[in-house]
């Protein structure tokens, strides 16, 4: 490691003075050309050897170094006439308006100058305050008609974008006329402004005089900044900047000869404007009001501003983020068979990415084998590094010599192999869990494979998403990734202290099918599912039932095999209790005795209430509340009490077990899941009729003036809210009727009730009715005058006219209903688009502000210079990821565990 030799104390920004440009210039450039016919740089041309060299073999005439060593040197162009710098055109306008056209003083009285000087001192360099003062001065001064210092009359100045200034003068007869101020005139005026007035205009007189904003000399960047490239056909292609500089020099030379020849003013001004155009586009080729300079192909030139600006620009594209080695990117696809902390890596990628492995006496044989396999046979190696640090590519020709030379102390860059640690990432990387460490599993085909349980933290799906993979190269980096970044360390989210990674969709439905009351499996099935899930049991427990000599195990018994042997927990699950009283009794009994007798369990057990005692599932069905995201109580407990490794094992096994069950039982949802019997449909129709009648009665009452306004609302608002209320009631009632007829035999209902996918509302909308469509929480009203579409009478306040959809997705929407539904749906789309844009910007601002803060070893939060931000992290020093819902300790858990131990259970 290098020690820091010098520390940057401060950086000062300023504008280059013409003298400075000349001083730093290695050559004046006058020839609008680059190379001669032999491909040799022309003297005084844009590739002049004094500006540095890029061709191998040539030497720089300024520093004597060869290409690659010479950093390049600036040159300059002497402009025949001054031109405005576009980037400063607005500033110049302000300065012109603020100063006297005769004496150059700022148009403030001496007293005002005194006053503002004082205020500036008081601002003490606070940028926002200074900017406010400058704005204030400008506003005050630009209306002044005479100079307070010399008494000269002032004329209003107009600024025509991008670089033209007009002065509205008055001639002897009192007629107004417009005078165009050429850059030379502008410059003359600015030169007259005394240094002492400049600070009031926001200038630092030593670092930046305003007249330097009008260019008389143009710096020519070094050749190394704009290298030419040779195409396949041997033709030299110049950089866009060079093209632009050629244009500038050509016009400059023409202007110079015309001036010297005494050409008419009109021609000179035309050329002068042309020079202005070229310099403007050289600085910024996206100036509004200026046609962009283009290639012959029609592609706009990429000039100075374009190099810096935007996402691909120097700042965001090359300094804030850059391309890296040892990384790969490809499409992702799912693989339920690999562990949550594994990633499937295509063979082709595994053979390209390498890990440097130091040769020791223990791995010598293995590495020699890899080297003899070479780069084209897996598992092989691509490079070796000798003790002096020289990299040698392994090839057919040198393989034998490399093998002979290889010794302890060498390093072999071997192919990626199973078990290697890599970082896996999906953009946008919005939180810590967007980059996690995985173990490599080399696989055939061309996609990265990942376990479905890690889709939520990455927010990944498989509709074409791509992800990135990085290979840590040093032992330190690998150890760090292993300890801090591996997937199992992120099962618990730091945001809410519960699991972020858990079973999803089929994992939940499968868990329900496995553990629900009446689910029994034969020996063959049990053995198969345990084998599939990778559960290692020496002996199956006693069968729960034997019928005609056939043994049966309940799903609950099988599920219990995955649990830690001393785990105890009880909770009401997502499916919930049908008989609230019975569940309450069960809960009371557990809380009182902790250990219930078999009879008590038989009597009180309910699929809606989970009771696990010492690793045995005695009551309740397994659903999202067990190992789902966000509210997986069981998974949460296992991770916190038995560690992340056990949590990973449990999740791997339980998801596979669920998948086995769901594939072997069969689980589909189709349109007949939304079938309702005729009398249900009748009842729903009745509810709709009732609702429409209610709405009509409300409207009548409103029209008769019998309606009383609610407090804080107008009469119309009251009516609206009453109608909305009635219609919402109607949909809820319809939903209730639908769910009365659809039970747990219905797969859509299973998914909704267990939390696997969808809500009961979705089933209601499919089977019963869609209900009220809304925009911004209001019934639909926009469109034509007094109505949404022309299918209705103006000012119709009825349910149907304002977006109440009585049909269901299954029964089919009428054309007007369909349009209403599209209106409501559009709002959601617009909302998400706007939200992502806004939150993205907020995120970037926050990250910029917080990125360098860290928790120190003494528990304080500090910035890089050691300034304390918090005296204790989060005020209590607790890592939310390792806490019990934000608390360091869960006393209830401690009591339960102690009690169970005391009772010898």
């Amino acid at each position, binding site marked *: 490691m290098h020690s820091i030799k010098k520390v940057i104390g401060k950086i000062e920004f300023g504008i280059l003075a013409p003298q400075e440009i000349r001083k730093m210039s290695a050559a004046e450039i006058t020839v609008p050309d680059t190379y001669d016919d032999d491909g040799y740089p022309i003297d005084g041309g844009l590739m002049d050897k004094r500006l540095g060299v890029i061709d191998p073999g040539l030497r720089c005439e300024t520093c004597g170094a060869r290409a690659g060593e010479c950093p390049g040197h600036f040159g300059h162009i002497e402009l025949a006439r001054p031109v405005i710098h576009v980037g400063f055109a607005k500033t110049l306008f302000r300065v012109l308006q603020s100063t006297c056209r005769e004496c150059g003083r700022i148009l403030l009285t001496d007293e005002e100058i005194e006053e503002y000087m004082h205020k500036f001192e008081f601002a003490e360099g606070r940028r926002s305050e200074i900017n406010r003062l400058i704005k204030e001065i400008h506003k005050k001064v630009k209306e002044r008609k005479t100079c307070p210092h010399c008494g000269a009359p002032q004329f209003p100045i107009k600024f025509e974008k991008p670089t033209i200034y007009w002065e509205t003068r008055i001639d002897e007869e009192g007629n107004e006329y417009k005078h165009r101020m050429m850059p030379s005139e502008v410059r003359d005026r600015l030169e007259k402004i005394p240094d002492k007035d400049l600070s009031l205009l926001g200038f630092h007189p030593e670092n930046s005089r305003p007249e330097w904003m009008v260019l008389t000399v143009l710096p020519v960047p070094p050749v190394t900044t704009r290298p030419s490239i040779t195409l396949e056909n041997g033709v030299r292609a110049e950089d866009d900047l060079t093209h632009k500089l050629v244009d500038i020099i050509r016009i400059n030379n023409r202007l110079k000869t015309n001036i010297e020849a005494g050409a008419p003013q009109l021609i000179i001004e035309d050329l002068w404007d042309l020079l202005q155009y070229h310099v403007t586009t050289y600085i910024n080729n996206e100036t509004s009001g200026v046609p962009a300079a283009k290639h012959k192909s029609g592609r706009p030139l990429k000039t100075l501003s374009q190099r810096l600006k935007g996402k691909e620009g120097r700042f965001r594209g090359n300094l804030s983020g850059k391309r890296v080695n040892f990384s790969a990117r490809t499409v992702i696809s799912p693989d339920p068979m690999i562990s949550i902390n594994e990633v499937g890596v295509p063979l082709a990628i595994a053979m390209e990415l390498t890990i440097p492995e130091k040769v020791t006496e223990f791995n010598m044989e293995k590495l020699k084998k890899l080297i003899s396999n070479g780069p084209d046979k897996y598992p092989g190696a691509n490079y070796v590094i000798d003790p002096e640090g020289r990299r040698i590519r392994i090839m057919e020709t040198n393989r034998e010599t490399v093998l002979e030379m290889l010794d302890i102390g060498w390093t072999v860059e071997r192919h990626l192999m199973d078990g290697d640690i890599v970082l896996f990432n999906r953009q946008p990387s919005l939180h810590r869990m967007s980059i996690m460490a995985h173990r490599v599993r080399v696989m055939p085909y061309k996609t990265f494979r990942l376990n479905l349980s890690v889709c939520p933290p990455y927010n990944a799906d498989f509709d074409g998403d791509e992800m990135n993979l990085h290979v840590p190269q040093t032992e330190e980096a690998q150890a760090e990734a292993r300890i801090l970044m591996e997937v199992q360390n992120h099962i618990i989210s730091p945001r809410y202290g519960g699991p972020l990674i858990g079973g999803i969709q089929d994992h939940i439905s499968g868990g329900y099918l496995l553990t629900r009351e009446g689910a029994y499996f034969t020996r063959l099935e049990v053995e198969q599912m345990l084998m599939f899930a990778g559960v290692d049991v020496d002996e199956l427990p006693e069968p729960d039932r034997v019928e005609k000599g056939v043994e049966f195990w309940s799903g609950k018994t099988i599920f219990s095999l995955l649990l830690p042997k001393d785990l105890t927990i009880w909770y009401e699950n997502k499916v919930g209790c049908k008989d609230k009283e019975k569940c309450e009794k069960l809960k009371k009994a557990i809380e009182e005795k902790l250990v219930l007798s078999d009879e008590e369990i038989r009597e009180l057990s309910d699929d809606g209430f989970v009771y696990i005692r010492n690793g045995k599932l005695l009551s309740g069905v397994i659903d999202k509340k067990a190992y789902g995201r966000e509210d997986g109580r069981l998974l949460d407990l296992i991770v916190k009490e038995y560690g992340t490794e056990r949590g990973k094992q449990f999740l791997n096994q339980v998801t596979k077990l669920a998948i086995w069950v769901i594939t072997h039982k069969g689980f589909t949802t189709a349109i007949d899941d939304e079938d309702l019997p005729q009398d249900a449909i009748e009842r729903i129709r009745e509810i709709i009729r009732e609702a429409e009648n209610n709405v009509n009665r409300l409207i009548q009452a409103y029209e008769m003036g019998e309606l009383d306004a609610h407090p804080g609302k107008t009469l119309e608002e009251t009516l609206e809210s009453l109608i909305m209320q009635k219609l919402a009631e109607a949909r809820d009632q319809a939903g209730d009727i639908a769910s009365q007829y659809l039970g747990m035999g219905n797969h859509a209902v299973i998914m909704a009730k267990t939390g696997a996918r969808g809500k009961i509302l979705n089933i209601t909308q499919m089977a019963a009715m869609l209900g009220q469509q809304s925009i911004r929480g209001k019934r639909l009203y926009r469109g034509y005058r007094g109505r949404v579409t022309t299918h209705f009478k103006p000012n119709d306040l009825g349910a149907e006219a304002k977006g109440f959809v009585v049909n269901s997705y299954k029964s089919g929407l009428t054309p007007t209903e369909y349009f209403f539904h599209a209106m409501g749906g559009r709002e959601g789309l617009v909302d998400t688009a706007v939200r992502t844009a806004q939150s993205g910007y907020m995120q970037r601002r926050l990250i910029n502000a917080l990125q360098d803060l860290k928790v120190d070893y*003494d528990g*304080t939060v*500090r910035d890089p*210079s*050691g*300034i*304390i*931000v918090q*005296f*204790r992290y*989060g*005020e*209590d*020093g*607790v890592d939310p990821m390792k806490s019990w819902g*934000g608390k360091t300790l869960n006393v209830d858990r401690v009591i339960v565990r102690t009690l169970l131990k005391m009772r010898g259970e």
Partner: protein
Amino acid sequence: MAAKRKFNIFDHELVPEHRILSDEEKAELLKKYNIKLSQLPQIKASDPAVEELGAKPGDIIEIKRKSPTAGIYYYYRIVVED
């Protein structure tokens, strides 16, 4: 600046307790966190609480805050010129 206030701001329930540290406490604090004065968070001399206490630039103010996570949390700020 030091015009008479009609009420004591510390009587307001949203204003946490402020206290000037003694020289010994100051030295102890700096030692505890191994910091220089410039590494402390700052508070302006014109801050109403600081004016009320009559603290001078260079003093360290201890602020006893209510915290949703820790119950009570002490924060320290160095008084700086306005």
